[in-house]
């Protein structure tokens, strides 16, 4: 069987799961700068599925496509540390303010620059939890989609067999390639970094990152071209400008409220026997329990 060309869509996201006290400003709003930027967790599950195919089907390549600011090149490096062959950063102010539809459109335009048999991405990103970009990319490219994938069980070069984890059970489907697969968090976790790849790729940089680099980097890139990560601006993809960024986004944010918790009168107990005895009596008396 011929090796597969796999593109993994990945996103760098603020770690919204660990919003500590220092991540909130005095006015109660989120201090985004204080949140660490991480590889979106389910995109790591997606990467693992891709790397497993690379392990089993000789000649398979795995590349990451991500959209974001210059520092999002970090995602590509991180994927390469774990076994990806390379990646592409789509980065331009023209993409700012994109909702899921405009994001999907931009990604689909970038994907038209690439060859692929499989496009794999995480089910959803933790900063929005929408799960929309995968299916929308599939629709834009007129490809079939398999969402909620837990395990890519088989690939015969033409058809993939995929186990899906749904709310109330599992489903096994077959789907012809090329197609888009979105992977659940319940899938196998991503393998750790490989020390050899870390050594090899730690100096890899995207174009914007390289702006601050010194001469040593450029000397190194001359010797090892793979240290130059491909970065695409809006000029590197064929797109209709009206469908990008804010203008290409049907959804508009009317307003945003920071969550301010409403206080209500509560009985504060320290958990002594007498207090808990009294509380259980009250709950039984007012028919909340019993």
């Amino acid at each position, binding site marked *: 069987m011929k090796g597969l060309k796999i593109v993994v869509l990945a996103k760098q996201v603020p770690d919204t799961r660990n919003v500590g006290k220092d991540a909130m400003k005095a006015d109660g709003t989120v201090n985004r700068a204080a949140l660490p930027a991480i590889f979106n967790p389910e995109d790591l599950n997606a990467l693992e599925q891709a790397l497993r195919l690379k392990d089993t089907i000789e000649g398979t390549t795995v590349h990451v496509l991500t959209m974001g600011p210059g520092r999002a090149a970090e995602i590509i490096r991180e994927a390469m540390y774990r076994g990806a062959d390379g990646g592409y950063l789509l980065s331009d102010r023209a993409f700012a303010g994109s909702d899921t539809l405009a994001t999907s459109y931009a990604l689909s335009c970038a994907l038209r620059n690439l060859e692929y048999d499989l496009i794999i991405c995480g089910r959803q990103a933790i900063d929005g939890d929408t*799960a*929309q970009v995968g299916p929308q990319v599939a629709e834009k490219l007129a490809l079939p989609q398999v969402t909620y994938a837990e395990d890519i069980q088989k690939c015969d070069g033409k058809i993939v067999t995929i186990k899906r984890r749904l709310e109330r059970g599992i*489903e096994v489907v077959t*789907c012809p390639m090329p197609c888009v697969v979105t992977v659940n968090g319940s899938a196998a976790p991503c393998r750790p970094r490989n020390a050899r790849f870390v050594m090899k790729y730690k100096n890899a940089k995207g174009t914007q990152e390289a702006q601050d680099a010194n001469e040593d980097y450029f000397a190194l890139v001359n010797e090892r071209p793979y240290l130059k990560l491909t970065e695409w601006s809006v000029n590197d993809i064929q797109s209709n400008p009206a469908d990008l960024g804010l203008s290409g986004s049907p959804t*508009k944010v009317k307003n945003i409220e920071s969550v301010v918790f409403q206080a209500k009168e509560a009985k504060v*107990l320290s958990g002594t026997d007498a207090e808990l005895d009294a*509380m259980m009596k009250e709950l039984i008396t007012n028919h*909340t329990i019993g």
Partner: protein
Amino acid sequence: MNSVFVYCEIEEGTVADVSLELLTKGRALATKLGVKLEAIVLGEGLKDVEKQVFPYGVDVLWVGDDARLAPYTTLPHTKMLVRLFDAEKPQVALMGATSVGRDLGPRVSSALHSGLTADCTSLEIGEYTDAKSGKKYENLLYQIRPAFGGNIVATIVNPECRPQMATVREGVMKKEIFNLQHQGEVKKLNVDEYLDDTDLVVKVIERHMEKSKVNIKAAPIIVAGGYGVGSKENFNLLYELAAVLGGEVGASRAAVDAGFCEHERQIGQTGTTVRPKLYIACGISGQIQHTAGMEESSMVIAINTDANAPINKFADYVITGDLNVVIPKMIQYYKKNSK
């Protein structure tokens, strides 16, 4: 003109609860807008399905009854919806934020170039003025949802594109009969006119669906654990308390992600929404993604070592202490006092 549409999901020949909840909400929105409520059901063996939905106030029911539409697969359902929406031009389209709705919704919205907001916790009608153009819009759908990990609540609108699409999780909206005598019109869809072989390339070769074993939605008392419970073993204490009180065990996303508890017990924006008589939150800090799923509980007891945990703001009783000490005492004093 320009109705409110609800895509109804079918589970074993029955319209899913989440769809009936959306019909209830859709009825209210349609009445407010002065338009019809229309529903679409796609599946196989759908005889008499109208009897299930008309009491919820459906004026027009579109039925596509064909073997190719069951079990659900993405492409045939997408095509039916896209074509129907193209022809009927609904102003609002709602579907469940289920593994079906979240597979179908984005695909349909992309094909129609319309805006979709996932996992809304509230839907309202209101006006909007575009800050840039100054253009004013009346009667837009406010799609309200927590965002950014639940640290903010965003109101999203789709000023220009139709339909305005939203998904909502099961249990978020209330299910209420509109009128048992309400009669609507059934319109049969000729599935042959919509589908061809290219829509059937994905094949379901195996399927094991089970009715959700735990029904935390219906439980009058919920003992819920968060990451602060510390381990799967410590959750046993919660099961013990729930068993004594006649309740169910729930969990926050952090506890489920940590493997302390199975996903079907997850409460919150990305889990189930519950409205029990009593909610006992153990080792739950109270991120809004979680509280969005329990804030309508009649009474809340929060057990936490952190005296400043956000969950305490929702609580009627705040117990600052170690749940491994507090819960056994609660069991002890419940037994003593209930005799």
